[in-house]
């Protein structure tokens, strides 16, 4: 029993950055921006978070650095795709690859090539007084770190903004028919750029979660495709924040199971297979899914005539 509780605790822990990244993706994609630079944004966030925290000795500085750097990468992506009207997917992939080299390079510029990996203390667990005493869910849900709690709070906020406010209506309309938005007197490019910036902030913090909360160090394999999983979660969750939460948890579970089996070992099945579990899950679930509520103009460059 305790094993299962531990497994679920771990699952919730691992799901946080995926949910956070997917939420950022939801906001950007609802305006029509297929932000596939997210893998690069995650990595940049992981690097900036670690560097910020290691150099200042302060967790908050680390997360702030990750947020800003994630936003800057997103702005680069947004500038190329929205204002220079370059192809979204090609640019996104290019930016993602660029950031891989960039982070490795600047890690060495800042820290040299250390003989043993540089480490920091990971973000501590923050037990919610009272609630954490509830059996089972007390440990699973209320003995997590602060970023996890904030992420849970962001889910309803994003939901509210998207479905209940004028800003949300504009965001959704931009992804469905940008011309209609322009005709209604709203600057489509600005809306898309802002949405991409917000997505970048979320992605940056999500990336920093891996370096600051999960392992307490940085290396270039730290993200290894988790950005793409967040990208997939956004699809599977039907561009809905609640969907992102649910699928984020599902992928958290699959990651935790992979880690658990690897740790226990002896099942006769190569543990690498379980590491691949989340990635296989993306393929299987996407293929099984019949109906997607894709924003009609997702990935389409909006060219304004004037």
């Amino acid at each position, binding site marked *: 029993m305790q094993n299962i509780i531990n497994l679920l605790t771990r699952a919730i822990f691992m799901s946080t950055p995926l949910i956070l990244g997917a939420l950022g993706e939801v906001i950007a994609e609802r305006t029509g921006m297929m932000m596939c630079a997210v893998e690069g944004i995650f990595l940049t966030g992981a690097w900036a978070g670690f560097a910020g925290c290691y150099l200042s000795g302060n967790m908050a500085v680390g997360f702030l650095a990750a947020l800003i750097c994630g936003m800057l990468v997103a702005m680069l992506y947004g500038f190329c795709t929205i204002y220079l009207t370059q192809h979204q997917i090609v640019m996104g992939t290019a930016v993602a690859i660029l950031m891989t080299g960039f982070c490795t390079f600047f890690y060495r510029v800042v820290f040299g090539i250390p003989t043993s990996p540089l480490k920091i203390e990971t973000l501590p667990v923050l037990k919610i007084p009272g609630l954490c005493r509830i059996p089972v869910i007390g440990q699973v849900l209320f003995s997590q770190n602060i970023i996890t709690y904030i992420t849970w709070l962001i889910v309803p906020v994003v939901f509210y903004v998207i479905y209940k*406010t004028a800003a949300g*209506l*504009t965001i959704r309309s931009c992804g469905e028919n940008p011309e209609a*938005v322009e005709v209604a*007197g709203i600057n489509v490019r600005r809306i898309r750029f802002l949405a991409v910036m917000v997505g970048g902030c979320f992605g940056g913090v999500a990336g920093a979660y891996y370096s600051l909360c999960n392992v307490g160090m940085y290396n270039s394999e730290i993200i290894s495709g988790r950005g793409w999983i967040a990208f997939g979660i956004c699809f599977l969750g039907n561009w809905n924040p609640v969907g992102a939460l649910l699928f984020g948890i599902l992928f958290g579970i699959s990651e935790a199971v992979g880690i658990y089996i690897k740790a226990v070992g002896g099942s006769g099945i190569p543990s690498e297979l379980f590491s691949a579990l989340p990635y296989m899950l993306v393929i299987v679930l996407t293929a099984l899914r019949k109906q997607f509520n894709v924003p009609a103009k997702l990935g389409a460059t909006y060219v304004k005539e004037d």
Partner: protein
Amino acid sequence: MEQPVVELRGISKRFAKVLANDNVSMKIGKGEVVALLGENGAGKSTIMKILYGLYHETSGEIYVDGVRRRINSPKDAMDLGISMIQQHFSLVEAHTVTENIILGTVKGKIDFKKEEEAVQKLSDEYDFGVPAGARVGDLPVGIQQKVEILKALHRQTRILIMDEPTAVLMPQEIGTLMSFVRKFAEAGNSVIFITHKMKEVMEVADRIIIMRNGRITGEVRKDETDTKELARLMIGHDLEILSKEGTAEDAGRKKRLEVRHVTVQPKDAPAVLTDINFEIYEGEVFGIAGVSGNGQQELCEMIYGDLRPTSGEILLDGEDITPLGVAGRIEKGIGYCASDRYRYGMVANMSLAENMMLKASYLKKWDRHGVISWREVDRYTQKIIEDYQVKAPDASVPAGSLSGGNQQKVVVAREADMGSRLVIFDQPTRGLDLGAINNVQKVILRERSEGKSVLLISTELSELFELADRIAVMYQGRFMGIFDPQDLTTEKIGLLMAGVSMEEMTLRKEERTDE
């Protein structure tokens, strides 16, 4: 005129190389309906998009209520009470009517219930019958247009610009729209009505401004003009009178195409064509009338080889071509001008020359030892451009860069040339402007005088009366009969198209006289 609500002074607009508007000036008065008349590409939409802030003028000035204004975006225009309904609607199909209407006018939290009630009230006020909570994509086009109008009304518009508003409407809906326009103007608002149809202009406008090649070529009051003058101002010269020489019944003409008792019966579905039986002589135009979707498309495809008959046979010059596929029939000299040229007639991104050989690339015509002789193709295309008066700089420009009418000329030219024996024209003039219609109709008559057979499908009765030697009326995949145009009236055709047979008509008449 008293103080004009809107005044444009010397507006010019240049796109890269094209001068879309050249020194355009106009005044719009309060309570006035002004029609902006001109052919496609005359610059009507451009000048209005400048007034609405979607485009920015290269030079010139805009005055609203006598005050000079800079309109940088649609927001500025809307703040001045100007709204524009685009030709292709700017609606978010996945959203509800209310969401579409309030887009850009609300801030912060949206009280959807309250907004929906307000929209519904507005719709009821004008008797539009628009369900405020419905998804726009689920609504028919006529209602979608009303959503666009509501959007303008919701913003307290006093200057309403409508770009080709009738292009998508059914005849009854056009009537409703026209009466709305009149009512709206009588309430002291102004309407600018962009169109290329003269009939509408005469019906709704107080004043008509005619544009051609980016310039204003005339401005007339409706009661001081007629369609002939308007046509001349629009296209720059009088329309050529079509002349049809000879009749199809000349002795010794032989049957070109024979369709014998053809039925097309898809599996598990009602027959799309039932017992179609007719022949077309050489030098004859055989017209098909009918409401779209009554089997005309299938008839074309059956003759063209894309749809296999379940029973019956097709003969071309006495030879059975039923077993042949599309390619085989192209080689036999059948040309087909599809009703939707964008989908079936051309590749918009490819050059004119490439489009000319699109269907015949496998024929040996342009083949030099297995390699395409582009010089040959270019020369051929250049000749087509000249012969058919296609407005295009040369053979290398993409087909999509031409105006609709000129694209159709290219497709018509290719098919007329490919179809050495029979050419099928499926709604060849749909959506074209006057000059292009005139041009295409001339081609049809020229092919006829050259002895080719023509199958002409049209929903425009006047076109059939003008061009066809015999007319068949189609209803639910059957022929209601084949008639001499002289024996038909518009009223009779209308009844035949609705499925009332000639016998029933005489019966009804007798009953009436009996009473």
